[in-house]
């Protein structure tokens, strides 16, 4: 019999519901897999749960179960429901989501030991559908990074090649799913933090439309851009998780939900659908191997009956510039709350107030977070506001208008997900701008607020690897108009079937045991 951990989430949930496999055995198999983490993908796993309970507030007290019942926070404790579409399925949660009583750090030392008093809406929806919290995954500090090397708790290793990064900021979630340490995971995407690590780890990553899923309980980085979404092995599982999590939430006034909900996709052809390829792609900097996989995937789309159309996104090339003004500006405001008063670290508590603030923040934040707070504060400071922040907001308008114009002619816009395959640990840590360019293809969709999915499309040899370096996964990105997730998932499902990535990659796939031990 195939291993329990070989099943997709949809397959396992169906077998559990039909009584063909035991939820207990399935859960135990995944807890054992998560406990054997050698990738530093997890910061906390359910294996630690028993030792956790008596020390919720440091005074030997346990988390106040049920205290939240009558509050707007709903039923707080992430206790799984007995039945539901995800009954018995364990899911890894990026450590940026609050989980009542379970340590939540957002990858930062400033939140070490923090036990949130409430659970994020997205997580509560999963547990209300029967899912279990399998563990909390490592990430770039406050979701700022594209390699997971900015975590306060050490980098995550790419399961395809442990000398390389998994991407970021949701690197732990991506590595957990790709490495066979979780059947699915939650991540967040502000400028590419789901799609880029999904691409570098060879799995599916979906960033829904801004507003599709509640942000309540997601520790804020850039509030106008942050959106949560799933990491899965296939498109069907991504649809399953999105369907459970989407919806308007009165605890997030920017949440909207997806009208009509989400059905599991079934489509197997692309007849009648038009796919726009940005003309600007021709001049974009990207690896030859990535370009080759992109072109092969475009050919597959045509074989499936899809039509390829040239479009133009003239302002997309300015996406990185606009993003690295807007996101740090919002972050500099959001991260003001980490001041040593209400939670987390406090340093120099015996000094005066300002010295306590400054010392706490200087000790608690890592270099990238400081860099972005500085950048954002500068962009918002007197004399520079219009030139940087105001101008970046206008570029954002232009980028959204470019997409609107494109979608008047095509159903989808397609690009590579990342300009390269996974790069070596340390390769870009000394050059922030080089690191930021990883987000070149993912940032425009974030600025426009539209949904986009990253699919594993093939393998390419790394340009920084020597002779005989193993080939690494290459992602393909499909973007759709706002709230067109169902259509996006149907197209992605059809393309996924034709690409047959799992069969093509074969034993090299780490969750099948192919991880290279560096």
């Amino acid at each position, binding site marked *: 019999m195939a291993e329990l951990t070989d099943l997709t989430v949809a397959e396992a949930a169906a077998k559990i519901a039909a009584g063909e496999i035991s939820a207990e055995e399935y859960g135990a198999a995944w807890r054992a897999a998560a406990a054997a983490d050698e990738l530093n993908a997890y910061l906390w796993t359910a294996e630690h749960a028993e030792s956790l309970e008596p020390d919720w507030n440091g005074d030997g007290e346990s988390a106040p179960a049920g205290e939240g019942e009558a509050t707007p926070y709903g039923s707080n404790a992430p206790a799984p429901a007995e039945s539901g579409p995800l009954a018995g399925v364990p899911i890894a949660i990026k450590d940026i989501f609050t989980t009542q009583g379970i340590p939540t750090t957002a990858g930062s030392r400033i939140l070490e030991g923090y036990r949130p008093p409430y659970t994020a809406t997205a997580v509560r929806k999963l547990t209300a559908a029967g899912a279990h919290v399998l563990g909390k995954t490592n990430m770039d500090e406050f979701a700022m990074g594209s390699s997971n090397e900015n975590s306060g708790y050490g980098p995550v290793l790419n399961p395809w090649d442990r000398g390389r990064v998994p991407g970021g900021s949701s690197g732990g979630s991506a590595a957990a799913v790709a490495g066979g340490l979780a059947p699915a995971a939650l991540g967040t995407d502000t400028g590419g933090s789901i799609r880029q690590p999904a691409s570098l780890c060879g799995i599916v990553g979906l960033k829904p439309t801004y507003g599709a899923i509640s942000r309540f309980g997601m520790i804020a980085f850039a509030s106008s851009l942050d959106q949560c979404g799933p990491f899965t092995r296939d498109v069907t599982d991504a649809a399953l998780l999105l369907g459970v999590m989407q919806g308007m939430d009165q605890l997030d006034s*920017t949440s909207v939900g997806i009208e009509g909900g989400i059905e599991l996709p079934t489509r197997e052809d692309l007849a009648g659908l038009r796919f726009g390829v940005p003309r600007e792609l021709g001049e974009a900097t990207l690896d030859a191997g990535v370009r080759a996989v992109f072109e092969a995937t475009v050919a597959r789309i045509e074989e499936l009956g899809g039509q390829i159309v040239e479009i133009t996104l003239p302002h997309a090339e300015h996406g990185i*510039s606009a993003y690295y003004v807007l996101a740090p500006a919002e972050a500099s405001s959001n991260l*003001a709350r980490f*001041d040593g008063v209400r939670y987390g670290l406090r340093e120099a508590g015996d*000094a005066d107030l300002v010295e306590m603030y400054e010392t706490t923040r200087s000790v608690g934040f890592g270099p990238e977070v400081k860099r972005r*707070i500085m950048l954002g*504060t*500068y962009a918002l400071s007197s004399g520079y506001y219009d030139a*940087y922040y105001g101008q970046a907001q206008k570029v954002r308008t232009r980028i959204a208008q470019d997409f609107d114009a494109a979608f008047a002619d095509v159903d989808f816009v397609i690009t590579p997900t990342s300009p390269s395959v996974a790069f070596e640990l340390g390769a870009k840590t000394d050059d922030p701008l080089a690191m930021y360019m990883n987000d070149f293809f993912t940032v425009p969709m974030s600025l426009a*607020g539209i949904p986009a999915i990253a699919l594993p499309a093939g393998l390419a040899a790394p340009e920084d690897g020597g002779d005989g370096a193993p080939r690494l996964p290459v992602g393909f990105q499909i973007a759709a108009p706002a709230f067109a997730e169902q259509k996006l998932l149907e197209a992605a499902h059809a393309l996924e079937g034709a690409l047959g990535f799992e069969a093509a990659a074969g034993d090299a796939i780490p969750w099948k045991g192919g991880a290279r031990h560096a």
Partner: protein
Amino acid sequence: MIDREQVLHVARLARLRLDEAEVETIAGELSGILEHVDRIRGLDLEGVEPTSHVVHLENVLRADQPWQSMPPAVALANAPEPFDGAFRVPSPQADAD
């Protein structure tokens, strides 16, 4: 482009204390990033509406019904220095600069 004085000024605004090495590094890094970002300053965007948010919602209001707030003991459970049902902070007296 960004000099030492500007770095120190912004750090004060952001309530960050940087050591000498960090000031040097950040001045160089911010200059490099801003040099790239400066390309958008030259774009002619006269008359373009700025986008602060992509979801166009107005007046999202909930029903005017009282909710039970988080119990004080729970709100204080993570505080570095809870005191008598409140968050204790150091004296702001010396904040005269």
